[in-house]
C-alpha cells in the first residue's frame, strides 16, 4: 500500500488553506490545516509531516518563529514558504531563523503548487542561502 505524503498548510487566510487542501487532496496528498503559528507547532508536536507550507506574516506567532520551533522539534521537516510579501529583509530573517527549502510567491495556481511540493519532497531545490 502507498503511504500518502503528509502536508501541513499554515496560513491565516482560510481560503488559502482551503484551496491548497482542495488541490492537493485529489492528487494523493494528506493535508492538514493550521490558521496560526501556535496551532501549527501544537500539531507538529503530535504528528509528523513531509512538507510544511508556511505563510510568513501572520498575527501572533509569525512564520519565522513557527518554522524555528518546528525545526527544533522535527529537524527533518521540509518547509516551503508561501507569501505574498516581497520584502527581502523579512525573507532573509526567515531564512536565517528557520532554514526553509523553497519559496512560493502568492498567488500561485494548481500546477505551481503541485510542482513546488514535489520539488520539496525530492529535495530538488537550491538552498536560498546560495541563491541569494
Amino acid at each position, binding site marked *: 500500500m502507498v503511504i500518502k505524503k503528509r502536508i501541513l498548510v499554515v*496560513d*491565516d*487566510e*482560510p*481560503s*488559502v*488553506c*482551503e*484551496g*491548497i487542501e*482542495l*488541490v492537493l487532496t*485529489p492528487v494523493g496528498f494528506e493535508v492538514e490545516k493550521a490558521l496560526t503559528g501556535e496551532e501549527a507547532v501544537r500539531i507538529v508536536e503530535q504528528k509528523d509531516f513531509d512538507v510544511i507550507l508556511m*505563510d510568513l*506574516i501572520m498575527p501572533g506567532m509569525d512564520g519565522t518563529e513557527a518554522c524555528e520551533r518546528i525545526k527544533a522539534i522535527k529537524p527533518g521537516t521540509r518547509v516551503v514558504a*508561501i*507569501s*505574498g*510579501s*516581497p*520584502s*527581502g529583509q523579512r*525573507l532573509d530573517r526567515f531564512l536565517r531563523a528557520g532554514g526553509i527549502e523553497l*519559496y512560493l*510567491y*502568492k*498567488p*500561485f*495556481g*494548481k*500546477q*505551481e*503548487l503541485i510542482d513546488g511540493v514535489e520539488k520539496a519532497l525530492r529535495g530538488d531545490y537550491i538552498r536560498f542561502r546560495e541563491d541569494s
Partner: protein
Amino acid sequence: MVHDLKRFEEDEHFLSRIFASIQDGISILDTDMRIVRVNETMERWYAHAQPLVGKKCYEAYHGRSRPCEVCPTKRTLETGEGANDVVPFTGPGGKALGWIDLYSFPLRDPDTGALIGVIEYVRDITARRRAEEALRESEKRFRDIAESSVDWLWEVDAEGRYTYVSPVVMRVLGYSPDEVRGKFFYDFFHPDDRDRLKGEAFAAFTQRQRFRNFVNRNIHRDGRTVWLQTSGTPILDPAGNLLGYRGADTDITDEIMTAAQLKVHSENLEQLVAERTKEIDNCRSDLFAQAKLAAMGRLGAGIAHQLNGPLGGGLLLIDALAEECKESPKQLRMIAEARRALEQMHGIVEGMLSMAGVRRRGRPSRIRLGINALLDGILGILLLECTKRGIVVEKDYAEEIPPLHASVGELDQVFMNLINNAVDAMPDGGTLSIVSALAGDGIQIRVADTGVGISHEHLDKIFEPFFTSRADGRGTGLGLSIVHEIVERYGGRIQVESEVGKGTTFTVFLPLAGAVDGRPA
C-alpha cells in the same frame, strides 16, 4: 662850508616844515660823507645812533668804520650824478633789520656849480621786500606742490580755456602743458559724453559754484579712456565777475575699472547662485517624487501582501473547481474567465510594486495571451470615462494575430498607461484610435489620440524616469518609463510622434519569437 649853505637859511622856516613832514628819511652829507642835517624820520629810525649830525654816514647808519662797498652816495660824490641802490637797514649792533631804497642826489653851489654835498633820500622797503619774498616763496610752494601732486592742477578762463596746466597732465592725458594750454576743458571729453558734460560744467559756471567730484570720461592721447574726477573753485574779480575756475583732476580710471570688474564678478556670482538654486529646486522636486514613490512602495508592499493572500486562495480554489467541472466546457469557460480576472488583479498588484521600484525575486507568470482581448479589457475599464468626455473609440484589430507568451500584468500596465494617457490628453473629447497588426516577426499596436499633444522639448524626455509635465503633482513621472522598461524587457520597441494641439501617437512593437523564450536575463 657853513657859509656856503647860508642861502638856505633865508627859507629856513618854510623848508624845515617840508623837511619835517616827509615820512621817508632825508640826510644831508658833506663831501666827506659827514652828516650835516637829518629830518625827523631819520632821527626816529636811527634813534639808537643819536646824535647823527657830525658823524660819518657809515658810522651813524651802519655802525662801520669805513664806507660801505655798495653805496650810491659814494658814486654820486665820484660822478656828480644821482645814484640809487637798495642797501641793508642796519639796527643797533650792526644787525640787519630790513632793506632801504637809498637815492643820492648831488648838492651843488648855485654860483660855481661845484659839488658841495649829497642829499640822501631813504625809503624803507622792508615790508615790500618781505611781501615779495613771501610771494616768491608762495609761488615756489605752489609750483612744487603742482608738480609733485598726483592730481593734475589747472586753471581755465570764463570760457573754459586752459590758462594754467600743471605738468602732471602729461601723465594723465599724455599731452604737455603747452599743448593743453589754450584748449577748452571739454576738448578732452569722450565724444559720447561731451555735450552732456559740457552742459553740466557750464551750468556750474553760471552759478559760480564751487564743485566737487565731477566725474568725466576723457580720451588719452593714445586713445584709451581715462576717467577723471574734477573739483574746482570759481575765480572772481573784486566786483564778483567770473574770471574762470581753478581746480584739480584725479585719475580714477583704476577705481572705475575695478568697480566694473567687481560688478561683472558679482553678476556672475548671482547667476551662479541662481543656477545652483535651480539645481537644488530640481533635486528637491526629484526628492519629493522619490519620497512619494517610497511611500507608494511601502503602501504597495502592504497591499501586495494583503491582496496576494486571498488572491492565492481564490486562484487555488478556482483551479480546484476547474478539476470538479472537467465535464462541462461551459463551466470551464466561466472558470477560465474568473481565473483571468484574478490574474489581472495580480497583475495590477505587480504593476504597483514595479512602479514603486520594489522588485520581487520571482517573476510574474507568463501565459499565452491574445493582445486584442487584453486591449478590449482595458477599454472596458475606461469606457465610462471615454463616454463622459465624449471620446469616440475606433478599434481596428487584426484577427489573425497569434498569442504572445507574456505576463498579463506587465502588458496590462503598458497599454493601460498608454490608453489612460490618451484619454487624459482629451479632456474635451476627441478620437481614441487603437490599431493592432502583424508586423514582420512581431505585433504592432498603435494608440493614437487627438488631444493636446506633447511639446517638442518634452518629447525627448517622456520616457525618462520622474519626468512629468503635470504641474499639480498628480503624475509620478513613472508611467511611461515603466512602459518603456517593460517593452524593452520583451525585446520590443516604442515610438512616439506628437504635435501640440493635434494629438499624440504611440507605436509599440512586440516580437513574437523573443517573447516565447521567456524573459531575457
